[in-house]
């Protein structure tokens, strides 16, 4: 029994869970067929929580206002959600402040905190299906991907940081002179966290996991497109024993609730994931208010470099996954596919064929690889970029249109002959649009890959050790994946160079975001040694 369970664990552990779900065979309609989308499938979940979560209670917005969250399959209403604004952020911050200054959370032992995080992970595991359904419904991502990728990564992340809670180590330090020196790693206080809509749960985990493991309290603003899953799991968090006020969820818009959090004088730390433009605003608000330190995880235009020695079939599949996963709505999407000239033509043919096979459809239908884009704004923006690609002379190999006639579906789109100065090669499109560029040699592709204001991630596909080593060191990006992509284990730090952001999330590194370091220096009388 045990041995069997083990071997099944083993066989799956070599591939990232994120990629495992891709490329499932299926006989249902593909985007190239003319089949119209059928009636949307009813999601297997009810929307139970739509209010703000402040001090352990679900409450209406102070203004009484709500906003609609829409089903991206149809553009129809899922639910009206309480719309948080300045006053609600103030209430949430004051609950978090009280919970930090007077409550049990930072005062209980790290072991006790870790037990609550572990219980939370268990509860999420028990409710995985409903949570995944909310996520798919609100965001448009395939339900199967939410179940197989995002929820397991979420659970894993909380278990991982539960394990850090009782291992947060300062140092004792030998300084010059008769002094005992030690560093205390203290929780930083009230953390304000603003998360995006592309991975509502995963982003929640990256933010909340380390902040709570370190003993902080949190005010989290979810994206207005996807407020539902965070409310659901936060309810579970309180069932797991989280004291009131430790984790407060404010749904609402960026310019109102988000800005209130970023500029709040009583928030000690800010973490933001989203676009580079908004990141600039957030950093500015932090600077103008109380100089709170800021972690930013922003946009990207990540190169995926396929060298001449690569196995073309594998490279095509991985490059496809690297771009199209999550409807292309990944900050680290491999959105510049650089292919060596010797394999370029073959690669284009196969990339096009793979895109044609991509299964687009209702996220709740089995076997679907790609659902709708999250909202009409994103949908319009992506179609505009596709037109710009055509206008600037790139070759549209496949796709290029909306998919179906309802909702925000877009055909998997592949451009070849993309030049570095085209908009589709420079801007973050955040959609299912693959841009393929040709290159001749290593130095050239390194230079071109780095010629971007972004520096979030990169993929390198090669069997050559020296090429791999050279590129990993030369690429200016926070993550370089070699012969893999989108490997998002909780232990691996993630973050940007350049205008892709500041700081790192996940791994041991994210603890630094949520800790103050205090040096304690005590004069020693008659020390035995120094």
């Amino acid at each position, binding site marked *: 029994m045990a041995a069997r369970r083990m071997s099944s664990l*083993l066989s799956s552990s070599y591939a990232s869970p994120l990629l495992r779900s891709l490329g499932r065979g299926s006989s249902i309609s593909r985007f190239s067929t003319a089949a119209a989308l059928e009636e949307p499938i009813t999601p297997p979940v009810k929307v139970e929580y739509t209010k703000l979560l402040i001090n352990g209670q679900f409450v209406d917005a102070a203004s009484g206002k709500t906003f609609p969250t829409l089903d991206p399959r149809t553009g129809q209403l899922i639910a009206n959600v309480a719309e948080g604004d300045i006053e609600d952020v103030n209430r949430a911050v004051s609950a978090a402040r009280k919970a930090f200054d007077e409550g049990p959370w930072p005062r209980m032992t790290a072991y006790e905190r870790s037990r609550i995080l572990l219980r939370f992970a268990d509860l999420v595991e028990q409710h995985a299906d409903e949570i995944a359904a909310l996520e798919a419904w609100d965001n448009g991502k395939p339900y199967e991907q939410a179940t197989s990728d995002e929820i397991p990564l979420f659970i894993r992340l909380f278990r991982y940081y539960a394990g850090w809670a009782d291992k947060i180590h300062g140092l004792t330090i030998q300084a010059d002179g008769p002094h005992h020196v030690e560093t205390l790693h203290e929780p930083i206080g009230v953390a304000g966290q603003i998360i995006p809509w592309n991975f509502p749960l995963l982003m929640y985990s990256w933010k909340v996991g380390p902040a709570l493991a370190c003993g902080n309290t949190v005010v989290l603003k979810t994206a207005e497109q996807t407020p539902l899953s965070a409310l659901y799991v936060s309810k579970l968090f309180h069932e797991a024993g989280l004291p009131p006020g430790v984790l407060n969820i404010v749904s609402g818009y960026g310019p109102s609730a988000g800005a209130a959090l970023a500029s709040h004088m009583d928030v000690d730390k800010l973490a933001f994931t989203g676009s580079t433009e908004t990141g600039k605003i957030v950093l500015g608000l932090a600077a103008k208010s109380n100089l709170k330190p800021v972690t930013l995880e922003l946009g990207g235009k990540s190169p995926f470099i396929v060298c001449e020695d690569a196995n073309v079939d594998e490279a095509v599949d991985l490059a496809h996954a690297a771009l199209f996963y999550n409807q292309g709505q990944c900050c680290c999407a491999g959105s510049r596919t650089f292919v060596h000239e010797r394999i370029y033509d073959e690669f284009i043919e196969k990339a096009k064929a793979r895109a044609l096979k991509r299964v687009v459809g209702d996220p709740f239908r089995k076997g679907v690889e790609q659902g709708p884009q999250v909202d009409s704004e994103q949908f319009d923006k992506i179609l505009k970029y596709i037109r710009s690609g055509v206008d600037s002379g790139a070759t549209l190999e496949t796709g290029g249109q909306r998919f179906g006639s309802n909702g925000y579906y877009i055909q998997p789109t592949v451009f070849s002959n993309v030049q570095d100065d085209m908009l589709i090669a420079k801007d973050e499109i955040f959609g299912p649009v693959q841009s393929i560029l040709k290159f001749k040699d290593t130095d050239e592709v390194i230079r071109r890959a780095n010629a971007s204001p972004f520096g979030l991630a990169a993929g390198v596909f090669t069997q050559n*050790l020296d090429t791999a080593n050279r590129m990993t060191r030369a690429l200016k990006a926070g993550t370089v994946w070699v012969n893999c992509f989108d490997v998002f284990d909780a232990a691996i730090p993630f973050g940007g160079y350049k205008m892709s952001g500041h700081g790192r999330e996940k791994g041991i590194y994210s603890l630094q975001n949520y800790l103050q370091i205090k040096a304690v220096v005590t004069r020693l009388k008659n020390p035995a040694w120094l």
Partner: protein
Amino acid sequence: MAEIHNSSVKIPKIKFTKLFINGEFVDSVSGKTFETIDPRTEEKIADIAEGDKDDVDLAVKAARDAFDHGPWPRLSGSERGRIIMKFVDLVEEHVDEIAALDAIDAGKVFSHGKNREVPYGASVLRYYAGAADKIHGNTLKLSNQLQGYTLYEPIGVVGHIIPWNFPSGMFFFKTGPALAAGCTMVVKPAEQSPLSALLCAHLAKLAGVPDGVINVVTGYGPTAGAAISSHMDIDSVSFTGSTEVGRLVMQAAATSNLKSVSLELGGKSPLIIFDDVDVDSAVNLALMGGFANKGEYCVCSSRIFVQEGIYDEFVTKIARNSKGLTVGDPFHPATVQGPQADKAQYEKVLSYIEHGKRQGATLLTGGNPCGEKGYYIEPTIFTDVKDDMLIATDEIFGPVMCVIKFKTIEEAIARANSTRYGLAAGIATKDLNIANTVSRSIRAGIIWINCYLAFDADSPYGGYKMSGFGREFGMDGLYKYLQVKSVVTPVHNSPWL
């Protein structure tokens, strides 16, 4: 004395008495058994399979196979951590049974096992479950056109030889970090207290620890223990026990395959109490440090140094308070001290009490066996103890405390350090400078200031000098089960070095 008392706790049925090898309970190759004795009654509890060299060979073969070919070291750390977490949950479900087995097998107070030892063991296991996915090597800064990194790899097949004073606790302390590291192992429990280890190995299997990863060989030190420490196919041995036996383990390692060794051995730990303290709380600290687990505690504060200004008051109060300690059946709710673990220990402790009297120490309180049967001894305190008396130099491993007077901080440091041991020390003072000076001056692996026995999963501990080497607990306790491999390769045209 509290009488035999079985009403409140059900004595568990003994389910496991055989060796646990490759996931199965098996008889010893020889077919031999030995008796494990209830120290409350001096009667047999059960016949236990007696492992010897042949059995150790089978266990090592299973562990080697599990390490070289099995899934355990090939799982991700997080997957191992999940299985260890399941193991802890099962341990907690069986806390009554585990604590009761230790009570009948080793005379340990049932409520201490249930409320302290097993919960602490669970916290240690959870700590290492959470550490399994946090084993970090480094990438290196090399001085040529090179790049390099370190890999922390499981060391391989580990032998654990554990003592009888904390039978289940030691099982968790040893197996937890080794499991987290990805090692496979052969555990030899003490012949006095084999029962809880067999149950825990069974629970580990139920939790999903693959066959061959944990093997338990019950038996004696000179046979089964020696076979482990001299085995050519064991990569590391971890021993907790006496300093004499530790030396034998290290010699066996040296003459066989030079396996790495960690030793957690004896102690003669000082608790130094300064004039500025509240005497009542210092007395309680001394009683706790000196008599916890009937003095069968390697970190026991068996030398209590008391500064002269409060010495008389301290002596009066500790004599009075020690009489309030109830010795008796480990299952009796009033009991704080059960019987010594076995006859040999019992007799050894009594002989040290005789040495103390003969060499001229003053017997302040205790000094006698108690009860009609079983290995019970009164909490015993000597005063007027000279540093060179046997009771002040040797580890007695029983409820025998030496109270020693001192004048100055320098004198206390010098006398506290004048021992071949260096396991633990306690300091009781309100003075910051005294606390800092003494804690840096004492040559011991753990210093407790205004507390004692304050063990924590994150706080490494182990010995200086002849108290051993290597550390248990904390991340240090994990590293001893890891090999460090440097991987170096040239890097060409790197934009930075």
